[in-house]
C-alpha cells in the first residue's frame, strides 16, 4: 500500500507540475474535474423533482380553472368555497415550482405573470369595469396571477358580499380570464419539459456558466435570496425600506396563509438541496451530495451540515410567527426580523461557501450602488 502510494505520488508530481507552470491553455477542466456525475443529478432533478412538480402545479391550475367555471355557473357558497380551496392548493403547489426559472418558465416569465405581489387593485378594478385588458402585457403582471385571485376571492371577508360582487358578469369574466391565463402558462411550461426540453436540460451537463447545473443552482439561490428571504419576509418586515410594509405579504387578502407559504417555500428549498423526489419517496443525487463530494476531496468542514442546521433555525423562527404575517408585523416585527436574519445567514452560506465549493459563479449581483 505504501509503495502504491509512493508511485501515485510520483505520478501526481509528474502530471501536476508541468501543468502548474504550463502555458495559458487550460487543460485543467478535464484533469481537475471533480469527478461528480452531474448528468445523473440532472436526470434526477428533471424526472423526479422538476417535471413532477410542474405536473402537480399544472394539475392544480387546471382544477382551479374548472372550479372557476363551476362557480360562474352556480354562484353559490359551495362553489365559492370549492374555488377558494383550489386556489389555495394552486398557491401551495406554486411554492414547489417557483425556483425552477429555467427553460420555458424563464422564457415566458412564468413567475412574474403567476405570482407577483402586491397586486395593483386599482388596475384590477379598472380591468373589470372596462373589460379592456391584455394580460400578455408585462404592465398587467400586477393585475393577474395567484395574488390577483387572492384579491378577487378574499378582499371581502363576507361571503354574501363576494357572491353579490360576482353577480356582475364583468367580474366573473375577469376571474375566468385570470384563471385561464394562469393555467395556460403552467401547461406551456409542463409541455415544454415533456416535449424535448428535458433532454436538452440533462445533456447540458458541463460545468460552464451556461450548463444546467450552474444555471439551476443560480436559480435556486436567486429564488431563496430574492423571493423567499426578501419577498416573503424581508420586504414586508421593512428590511429594505424606511417603514414596515405589512401589506406586502403573500396572500395579503386571505390573511391566514402567508406564514404557511413561507414554510412551503423553505421546504421546497431544503428538499431540492437534499435531492428529495417530489413525491418524497426517493432521495437522489443532489447539491448536498455534490458539496459533500467536493468537500471530502478538500478535507474541509462539513458545509452541508452547517447549511441544514441553519435552515432548521430559520424554520423554527418562521414557525414561531403568526400564521398571518401582516398581523405579526403589526404586533411584533422583531420576530419577523429574527426570521429574516436566520434566512440571511443561510444566504451567506449558500452564496459564498456553497458556490465556492462547487466552483460556480454567481450570475446575478446585488445592486447596492453608491
Amino acid at each position, binding site marked *: 500500500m505504501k509503495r502504491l502510494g509512493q508511485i501515485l505520488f510520483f505520478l501526481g*508530481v509528474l502530471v501536476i507540475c508541468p501543468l502548474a507552470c504550463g502555458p495559458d491553455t487550460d487543460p485543467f477542466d478535464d484533469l481537475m474535474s471533480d469527478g461528480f456525475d452531474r448528468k445523473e443529478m440532472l436526470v434526477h432533478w428533471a424526472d423526479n423533482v422538476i417535471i413532477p412538480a410542474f405536473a402537480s402545479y399544472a394539475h392544480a391550475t387546471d382544477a382551479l380553472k374548472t372550479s372557476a367555471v363551476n362557480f360562474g355557473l352556480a354562484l353559490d357558497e359551495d362553489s365559492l368555497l370549492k374555488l377558494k380551496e383550489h386556489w389555495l392548493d394552486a398557491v401551495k403547489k406554486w411554492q414547489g415550482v417557483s425556483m425552477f426559472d429555467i427553460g420555458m418558465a424563464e422564457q415566458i416569465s412564468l413567475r412574474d405573470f403567476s405570482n407577483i405581489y402586491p397586486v395593483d387593485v386599482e388596475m384590477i378594478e379598472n380591468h373589470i369595469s372596462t373589460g379592456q385588458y391584455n394580460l400578455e402585457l408585462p404592465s398587467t403582471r400586477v393585475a393577474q396571477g395567484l395574488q390577483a385571485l387572492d384579491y378577487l376571492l378574499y378582499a371581502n371577508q363576507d361571503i354574501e358580499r363576494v357572491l353579490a360582487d360576482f353577480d356582475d358578469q364583468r367580474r366573473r369574466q375577469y376571474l375566468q380570464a385570470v384563471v385561464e391565463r394562469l393555467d395556460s402558462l403552467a401547461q406551456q411550461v409542463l409541455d415544454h419539459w415533456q416535449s424535448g426540453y428535458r433532454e436538452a436540460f440533462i445533456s447540458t451537463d458541463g460545468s460552464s456558466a451556461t450548463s444546467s447545473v450552474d444555471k439551476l443552482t443560480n436559480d435556486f439561490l436567486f429564488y431563496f435570496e430574492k423571493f423567499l428571504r426578501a419577498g416573503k419576509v424581508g420586504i414586508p418586515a421593512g428590511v429594505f425600506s424606511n417603514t414596515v410594509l405589512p401589506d406586502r405579504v403573500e396572500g395579503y387578502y386571505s390573511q391566514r396563509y402567508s406564514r404557511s407559504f413561507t414554510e412551503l417555500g423553505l421546504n421546497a428549498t431544503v428538499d431540492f438541496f437534499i435531492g428529495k423526489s417530489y413525491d418524497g419517496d426517493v432521495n437522489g443525487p443532489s447539491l448536498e451530495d455534490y458539496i459533500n463530494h467536493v468537500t471530502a476531496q478538500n478535507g474541509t468542514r462539513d458545509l452541508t451540515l452547517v447549511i441544514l442546521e441553519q435552515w432548521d433555525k430559520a424554520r423554527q423562527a418562521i414557525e414561531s410567527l403568526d400564521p398571518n404575517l401582516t398581523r405579526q408585523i403589526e404586533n411584533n416585527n422583531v420576530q419577523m426580523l429574527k426570521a429574516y436574519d436566520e434566512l440571511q445567514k443561510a444566504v451567506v452560506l449558500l452564496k459564498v461557501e456553497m458556490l465556492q465549493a462547487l466552483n460556480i459563479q454567481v450570475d446575478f449581483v446585488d445592486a447596492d*450602488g453608491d
Partner: protein
Amino acid sequence: MTTRGFSCLVVFTLMVLVACESDPDPMPVVQAPAVYKFSRDGESTVSFDGQTTRILMATELINAMEDFEVAELALNEMWANETAAGGDADPFENPALNESTKSVRSKTAASQDYFSSNVTEAIKIKSEFESWISAQVNEVFPNELVLAEPGIAGQIADDVSIRYVNGDGLEYNQAVNKGLIGALMLDQMVNNYLSISVLDAASNRADNDAGTVASGKSYTTMEHKWDEAYGYLFGTSQSESDPLPTLGGDDAFFNKYLQRVDGDEDFTGIAEEVYDAFKLGRAAIVAKNYTVRDQQAAKLRELLSKVVAVRAVYYLQQGKNGIPTSGSDFGAAFHDLSEGFGFVYSLRFTRQPDIDAPYFTASEVDAMIAQLTAGNGFWDITPAVLDAMSKQIADAFDFTVAEAGS
C-alpha cells in the same frame, strides 16, 4: 516523515523549482503614491460621490436639529430622504441632495459584516436615532425657554454658549452627530468597504486580476469599494487626493475627529498613518497584491476604531473635570458628556483588526449607555463612574486614560 517520504518531497520541490523558474515574482512590491491618485488609461479611477452625498445629508440633519423652527417631519425626511408615506421628499437646502435617492438612514448600522444577518439589531439602532430626532422636537424644543433641571428638559449655560438638553442633561443633536460617526462612517468603513467579504464579493477578485472594470466605469469594483471607505473619511475634503492639509475643517464627523485626535501630542501622526494605509491598500489593489491590501485594511480597522475610543475617553474625562463640586454650573460638563455619549455609542461599530468583532459588544455598550443615563443621567453621574468607564475603554486599546483625556 520517513526518509523515503522526505526524498520524495525533495524531488518534488526540485521539479517544481526547475519547472517554474520562468514564473514571475508572485508577490510584487507595492509602492504607495505620494497622494491618493489612481488612474486607468489616463482616466481617474477614484470615485466616492455617494459618500460625499451622505456626509452632506448628515450635516444638514444635525444642523437642522438645532433650529427651533424645524418640524419633526422635516428632520425625519432629512434622515430618510423620503416622506413618511415613502414618497420622494425634498428636505435639503442643497438641491443636489434632493435629487439623490440615497439617505443617511439606509447606511446607518448597515454594514455587510455586522448587520446583513442582524437586521434585528440594525433596525433597533435606526429606531434609536429616530427616537433622538423625535425627542429633540417633542421634548427639547417646547422647553426652549425653560431652565433645565434634573428630569426636565430645557436650556443650560455652558460659559457663553447655551445648550439645550433633555431631562438627563443629554443634547440629542450631539447623540445623533457623534453616534453617526460610529453607526454610519465607522461601520461603513471598517465593517463594510474594508471587509474581505465586500472587497472579494462575487467575482471582484477575478475581475480585478483581469482588469475588468465595472460596467460603464473606469474602475474595477474592488477599487471602488476601497474608495468608498476612503470617501467616508475624506468625502468632503477640499482636495480629494491630498486631504490632510485641511483635515478637521471639512466635516463635523470622522474627518473632524481624526484631526482632533491627531492634534493631541500623544497621538500625533495617526492621521498620516491612516492616509498612508488608504493609499498603500489602494495601490495594492492596483498591483493585485491582496496580502498587502489586507494588511492595510487590518491596520485601518485598528486605527479608525482607536480614533473613536480615544475621543470617547477624552469627552468622558472632560465631562468629569467639568462636574462642579458645588453649585449648578453643569453646562460644560453636559456638553462634553453629550459628545462622550455619542462616541461611547459608536464603540459598538469598532472592529478589531483580525477578527469579525468589535472591541466592545452591543451589550457592553448598552451597559455603558445605561450607566450614563441611570437616574437623572448626567445630573447624577459621578467621577468614579466616568473614570471606570474611561479605563474600561482605554484598556481595550493601546493607550491610557491620561493620554486620551487631555
